[in-house]
């Protein structure tokens, strides 16, 4: 798909589209100008700072009534400037704005996100801010200390990762992920630490004062991987689900494990007479590792259930639902930290547990708010950490030592590759679907370091680590190297290792058939389902349905997932879309006939290209089995639009076939099908209506029998006033449709020209589907059919 797209882009850059190219350049210029404007005040702010007081006393309002510019000290000042009052919030806000502008610019130029991860941009911005601060000789550069990092900056990032984690693939690969994360971290930490200790023993490098414990600590810090940046690059290539999940799961658990190790080693270092560490202490260390880890998870699960339970009762005050979610997660983190248990793992477990039940309970708006706010918070946190990183890059706290730094880099790469191949070799023996060498290569190359390793280095206590600057420098070098060089080259590497595409252009035929086959394959995969760990998941599902869902989820929920799908999709958007479709259809239906006659003419290459373009932009995307995750963005919304269109079209075709009494694609007259006809025509299906028609839509994995759709009268009274109101609204557009449709030649071809003209009348249907009562449908029909009958031809 991509090669035709690229060539068509090239061919498009001729005369008609010169304008858009110019426009893009103008956008870039505008953005640069804006950036400069923002940078200048911040530079000015920094250069002014040494002259001003940094007192925190509230400043007096300037008096506008008196004389201008009195210079005596005893007099009232008309204009006073007190920057110290707002210094910290002001600087933080400016940094965040600067980073946001940079991100806008980054995404404006559409080629960049494919080339490099977004972390690169953030680091550059951080370095820029650092350069400004350094250049203007800022007296009090911003400092990140332990409490700010661990209490304010880290939790949003962890929460966001835990919340957006795709649960099913995670639990399917859980054992592999656990094995890889835990043992991988341990192996990497100890490996790097011990190797560096070996290097430090060599006299020539001048590193002999670094003892074993310090090296081990450094090893544990530097092995904290942040592969989220790599995941963003994976979107382009078709990385399979298991690989994706391994990397994602690793990043999730890695933070927690690294921090635990870090704390254990710091505790060891603080035992002053460390030569006397006995084996009992080491055993205690191991035991503590497990207690901390598992305790954290347990805490998180408890808090997750409590918050899910709370959201059951919030349907009258839905504005506090996001608050509940965030506060409970944060509370789980804090209370775990009280007991020196891993707050990171607690928060992650809380987010994972909470998500499923909360999403069922909260209102649509709260759901959206939670998602967006989480992304926003984590984005801000990460930005700030990178700014700190940039600031300390262009600072004075460095110590360069060629040997240490080069060997660190080398050992990081070597040990990661070693641990990947060793651990995966063993786990492949137990997996049903082993990882290939190609997968392992990708995993070992995607070990990008990120904000967490820098933060841990920065927060080392100086009294215990006299050569802290060396560690900071080494960490910075490794981070820069991995993010820039590995981050930029991992995309091409993945694409190269992937299927080698033919360079020849695909013909139109091939494009169509390829897409058909991809959809077919996705559909068959859905039918086949997922096969690993079937029984365990089945048992959990049963337990979940029997007990947990009853306690934690609100009542009166529509039991079918198709209906909740409709809820999730924005119905308003569907109606707008149908209206715009209706307008364009009137023009196209008339020319349809003439188009058929055009078939015999030769088509110029330009027309072929434009056809290819039409296909490239408009073919529906195949449902991806591999999840896609990006820290800085929510998943794109185009899939929702596509899903709506497909569902709407299906309803329409069902309606058409019911109306004509035609056979549906799988044969058989419509009336005997156990399929829901969302709108019943007056004549044909009437005898069938009396049969109890039940449709149950379940999601992939549940096998419960209680999802049968109740045919009850309960919702009816509630929906009736709604129905009346909507009917009045819709009669008008349908009548309008009448006149417009009069001209067009509506043939019996299903789904072609009738498609869009009918969609408006059809569009109203989704709003009523929550009730799904047969009598309800029939009543609505008798009213609706009158104006709609001319369309029924």
């Amino acid at each position, binding site marked *: 798909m991509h090669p035709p797209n690229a060539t068509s882009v090239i061919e498009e850059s001729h005369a008609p589209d010169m304008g858009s190219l110019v426009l893009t350049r103008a956008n870039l210029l505008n953005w640069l100008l804006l950036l400069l404007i923002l940078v200048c005040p911040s530079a000015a702010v920094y250069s002014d700072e040494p002259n001003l007081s940094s007192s925190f006393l509230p400043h007096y309002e300037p008096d506008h009534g008196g004389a201008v510019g009195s210079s005596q000290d005893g007099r009232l000042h008309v204009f006073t400037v007190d920057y110290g009052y707002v210094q910290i919030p002001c600087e933080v806000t400016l940094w965040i704005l600067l980073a946001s502008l940079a991100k806008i610019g980054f995404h404006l130029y559409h080629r960049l996100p494919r080339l490099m991860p977004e972390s690169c941009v953030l680091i550059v911005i951080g370095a820029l801010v650092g350069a400004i601060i350094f250049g203007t000789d800022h007296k009090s550069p911003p400092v990140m200390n332990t409490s700010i990092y661990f209490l304010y900056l880290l939790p949003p990032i962890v929460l966001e990762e835990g919340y957006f984690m795709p649960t099913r693939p995670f639990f399917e690969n859980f054992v592999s992920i656990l094995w890889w994360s835990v043992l991988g971290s341990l192996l990497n930490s100890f490996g790097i630490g011990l190797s560096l200790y070996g290097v430090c023993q060599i006299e020539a490098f001048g590193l002999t004062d670094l003892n074993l414990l310090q090296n081990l600590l450094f090893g544990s810090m530097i092995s904290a991987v942040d592969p989220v940046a790599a995941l963003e690059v994976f979107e382009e290539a078709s990385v399979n689900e298991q690989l994706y999940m391994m990397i994602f799961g690793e990043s999730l658990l890695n933070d927690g494990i690294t921090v635990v190790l870090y704390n254990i080693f710091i505790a060891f270092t603080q035992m002053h007479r460390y030569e006397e560490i006995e084996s009992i202490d080491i055993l205690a260390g191991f035991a503590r590792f497990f207690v901390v880890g598992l305790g954290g998870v347990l805490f998180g699960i408890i808090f997750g259930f409590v918050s899910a339970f709370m959201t059951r009762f919030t349907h009258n005050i839905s504005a506090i639902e996001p608050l509940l979610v965030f506060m409970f997660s944060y509370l789980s983190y804090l209370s775990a930290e009280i007991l020196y248990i891993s707050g990171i793992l607690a928060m992650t477990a809380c987010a994972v547990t909470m998500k499923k039940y909360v999403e069922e309970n909260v209102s649509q708006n709260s759901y959206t708010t939670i998602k967006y706010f989480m992304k926003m918070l984590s984005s801000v946190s990460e930005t700030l950490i990178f700014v700190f990183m940039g600031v300390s890059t262009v600072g004075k706290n460095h110590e360069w030592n060629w040997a240490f730094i080069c060997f660190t880099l080398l050992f990081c790469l070597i040990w990661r590759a070693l641990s990947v191949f060793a651990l995966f070799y063993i786990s492949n023996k137990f997996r049903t679907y082993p990882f290939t060498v190609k997968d392992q290569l990708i995993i070992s190359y995607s070990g990008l370091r990120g904000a967490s390793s820098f933060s841990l280095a920065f927060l080392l206590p100086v009294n215990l680590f006299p050569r802290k600057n060396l560690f900071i420098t080494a960490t910075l070098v490794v981070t820069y190297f991995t993010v820039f060089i590995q981050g930029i080259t991992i995309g091409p590497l993945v694409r190269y290792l992937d299927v080698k595409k033919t360079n020849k252009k695909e013909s*139109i035929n091939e494009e169509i058939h390829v897409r058909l*086959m991809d959809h077919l394959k996705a*559909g068959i995969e859905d*039918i086949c*389902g997922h096969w690993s760990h079937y029984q365990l998941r089945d048992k959990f599902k049963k337990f979940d349905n029997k007990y947990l869902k009853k306690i934690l989820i609100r009542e009166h929920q529509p039991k079918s997932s198709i209906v909740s799908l409709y809820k999730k999709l924005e119905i308003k958007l569907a109606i707008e879309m149908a209206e715009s479709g209706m307008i364009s259809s009137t023009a196209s239906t008339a*020319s349809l006939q003439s188009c*058929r006659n055009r078939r015999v003419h030769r088509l110029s290459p330009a027309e072929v290209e434009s056809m290819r373009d039409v296909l490239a932009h408009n073919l529906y995307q195949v449902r991806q089995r591999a999840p896609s995750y990006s820290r800085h963005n929510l998943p794109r919304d185009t899939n929702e639009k596509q899903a709506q269109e497909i569902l709407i079209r299906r309803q329409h075709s069902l309606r058409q076939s019911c109306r004509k009494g035609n056979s549906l694609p799988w044969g058989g007259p419509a009336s005997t099908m*156990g399929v829901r006809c969302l709108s019943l025509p007056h004549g044909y299906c009437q005898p069938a209506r009396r049969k109890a028609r039940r449709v149950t839509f379940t999601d992939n994995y549940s096998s419960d*029998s209680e999802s049968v759709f109740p045919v009850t009268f309960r919702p009816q009274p509630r929906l009736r006033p709604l129905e009346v109101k909507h009917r009045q609204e819709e009669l008008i557009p349908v009548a309008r449709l009448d006149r417009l449709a009069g001209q067009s030649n509506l043939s019996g071809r299903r789904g072609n020209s009738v498609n869009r003209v009918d969609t408006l009348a059809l569009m109203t249907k989704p709003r009523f589907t929550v009730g799904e009562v047969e009598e309800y449908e029939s009543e609505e029909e008798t009213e609706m059919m009158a104006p709609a009958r001319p369309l029924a031809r």
Partner: protein
Amino acid sequence: MGAAAARPPPGLGALSDETGLSPAALMRLHERFQALDRDDKGHLSPADLQALEGLALNPLCERIVGAFFPAGAQRADFPTFARVLAHFRPAEGAPCEPGGPSSPGSKLRFVFELYDLDGDGQISYRELLQVLRLMVGLEVPDEALAAVAARALREADRSGRGTLCFEDFAKAVERLDVDRRMSIWMLK
């Protein structure tokens, strides 16, 4: 459900020979069949398949479901289910008879039949247009789509009849790696 899943379905050996799927794969498929069959009827109905959320969002949902219920049938028993899915067994590296269900030829025929609804052995312009319409967004004007369909037909139609027969179709897709695209590795 747990006890029933352990029992092998009748005729497993014969089915395995016929479809080329291994008995282990057939057992898993049987479990899946029973999971899909929500009312424990012993056979599948179209509603069972349509209840899958992922499939419901597939543009070709009706056609895929239709492949399991040929000629207007309303029930699909397990052998039918397995036979259809056998088309998606990866053929590479596995011994496969030229006429078997997972050979490239029969995979192609499966796809061909997705297009050819009336079963006359030819893909007409109208059928091509219908499939295209299913796969494309609503805002594409009909004339553009008709032009695309016409062009596709003309590219592949070597006999000049205005329809595609199976040989034309096979020739049109010969450059594509049909086997890889139509293989589900779980069925190996």
